[in-house]
């Protein structure tokens, strides 16, 4: 029939109103996402168009001693990625371990408890993680780092640990579902060849779940990239490209910066923060897109 664009307009007019309603609803989702991009861009325009002198009117931009917007955003991007990657490096092995524990090693009751532990960890709001980080984890780490670094240790290392605890539930639940679906035949095949339990896992489970694990890791990474409250409470902010994760006041993430500077920001300031927000949006989008790509390619290989 007459097809214009993605709709079959002829059929559309003949069909019932409910179809129109649900179509409209889907279009609305499109519109919302479009609106998000448009409004953010619109809000970011003044800062993007402003000259360096205009930007110097923002007190915290001035004290950051940045030469232009790019120079302002890059240390934030660096710290955001560094903290999230470090969190992932800590979280991924633990997540895989817990997933294996639940699926293969634990007796049924213990497996139920472990699942329950993961579910509750996933429910904890990020503000509580922030409070726990500064009131429990910092003093705890202080015992070891006491005279070596700043006290309390409000540094990237501590933040990454808290971020790791936050993303472990996400990664674990996805990987656990994947590992539960490992083909029984592969498992039995490995046992049949005389493998020990760990060798069976190494042979059958890990390769099978590799792609899914990578996809889950990217999703966890996306979550860590956008975390705000824990950063706001725990991290002492600074600007540098330092890899010293124990150095105080050397890092600040994009989300933490937005939350910290927003109360003091005039309209140009909010505009500049929106620019950084857009950068964060793009980074998270790329990470999530990569996760989807990896997951899809994994499915295709089976």
């Amino acid at each position: 029939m007459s097809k214009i664009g993605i709709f079959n307009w002829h059929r559309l007019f003949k069909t019932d109103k409910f179809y129109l309603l649900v179509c409209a609803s889907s279009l609305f989702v499109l519109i919302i996402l479009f609106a998000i991009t448009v409004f953010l861009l619109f809000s970011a325009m003044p800062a993007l168009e402003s000259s360096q002198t205009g930007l110097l009117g923002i007190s915290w931009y001035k004290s950051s001693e940045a030469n232009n917007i790019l120079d302002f955003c890059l240390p934030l991007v660096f710290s955001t990625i560094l903290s999230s990657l470090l969190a992932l490096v800590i979280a991924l092995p633990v997540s895989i371990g817990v997933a294996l524990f639940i699926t293969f090693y634990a007796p049924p009751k213990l497996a139920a408890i472990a699942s329950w532990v993961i579910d509750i960890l996933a429910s904890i709001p990020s503000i509580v993680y922030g409070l726990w980080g500064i009131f429990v984890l910092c003093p705890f780490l202080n015992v070891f780092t006491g005279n070596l670094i700043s006290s309390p240790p409000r540094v990237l290392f501590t933040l990454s640990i808290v971020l790791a605890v936050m993303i472990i539930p996400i990664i674990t639940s996805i990987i656990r579902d994947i590992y539960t679906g490992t083909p029984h035949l592969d498992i039995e095949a490995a046992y049949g060849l005389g493998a020990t339990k760990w060798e069976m896992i190494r042979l059958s489970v890990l390769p099978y779940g590799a792609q899914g694990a990578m996809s889950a890791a990217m999703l966890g990474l996306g979550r860590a990239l956008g975390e705000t409250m824990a950063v706001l409470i725990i991290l002492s902010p600074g600007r540098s490209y330092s890899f010293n994760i124990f150095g105080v006041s050397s890092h600040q993430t994009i989300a933490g910066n937005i939350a910290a500077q927003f109360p003091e920001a005039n309209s140009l300031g909010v505009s500049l923060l929106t620019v950084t927000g857009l950068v964060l949006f793009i980074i998270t989008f790329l990470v999530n897109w990569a996760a989807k790509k990896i997951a899809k390619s994994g499915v295709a290989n089976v």
Partner: protein
Amino acid sequence: MSKISSFRVNLLSKNGLKSKVLFKNIKNNRLSKFIKPSSRVISRQRRQFDNFMKVLIFLSFIIVSIPLVSIIYIVVANGLTQITPYFLTHTMKGVMGGFSPFGGILHALVGTILITLGAMVISIPIGILTAIYLVEYAKGNKLSSIVNTLVDIMSGVPSIVAGLFAYSLFALFFGPTAVFGISGSLALSVLMIPTIIRSTQEMLNLVPNQLREASYGLGVSKFRTIIKVVLPTAFSGIVTGVLLSIARVIGETAPLLLTAGSIDSLNLNLFSGRMMSLPVYIYNEYSQGLAVCTNNIFGADCLSDIRMQRAWSAALVLFIFIIILNLVGTTIKKRILKKRGK
């Protein structure tokens, strides 16, 4: 397969098996002589490594449990002190520093409920209708694939960016001083919509096709089939999805910090004035720090760490909310999945 054959080489070289065994590919169902791996056959090295990994994996469980126990302990131990009926039924209006009366979280509770209700009003219709479109009407056509991709993108939006979006939208129309509860609702709905769509999709997909076919066979229109047959069947699943998405956004602080602001007193109007919410209340109390009790000219009770006590108690209330929502949601979901034989 190469892994299995290389394993075979390792096995042979490490153990020096005396008997000849055919290591055929079991997947191809070829006959093979099985050997039961007796403990004599597995070398000490392999067994030690296996035990080592077993310990590591048990250790990872312990590693995960420690923060959980620590967090639950600190929230419950510190939070129980202030949870009184007074705390739950009074606002912070009139509370001065660390002096009694110590105030409560009523305005934050009501604010959280109202803002979340607002978010639900926005996101539930859109979410469910879109999911219906994706499952019932569109079978892989262009619009549905676009929408699917967009839902994935939307689920990755960081919460602070959603807050910035809601803020900039309202700032455009009402100026930079626009602070409303509904602005927070909009930000939260951006976070809720993808979750609702995905979970509703999952539940609608679980409805057996025979039901739909039977309904069509009786001459019922598609619209009525969906409304009268599919939706009621998937109803509890959809409700579960909504509960879980609420649990996800009810603890979000960052977007509400930017959009709904904070206030001491009760505000029942989503469309005017600032509105306090539980997570923002917690952050507020924390950031105001210790109260001054050294100059007690009023002679009233004074607690210098009252703000932290209130923060922990509010955190406990929030935590309980979320746990209940999650528990109810996941148990019903598991039951549904089991019923549908997944």
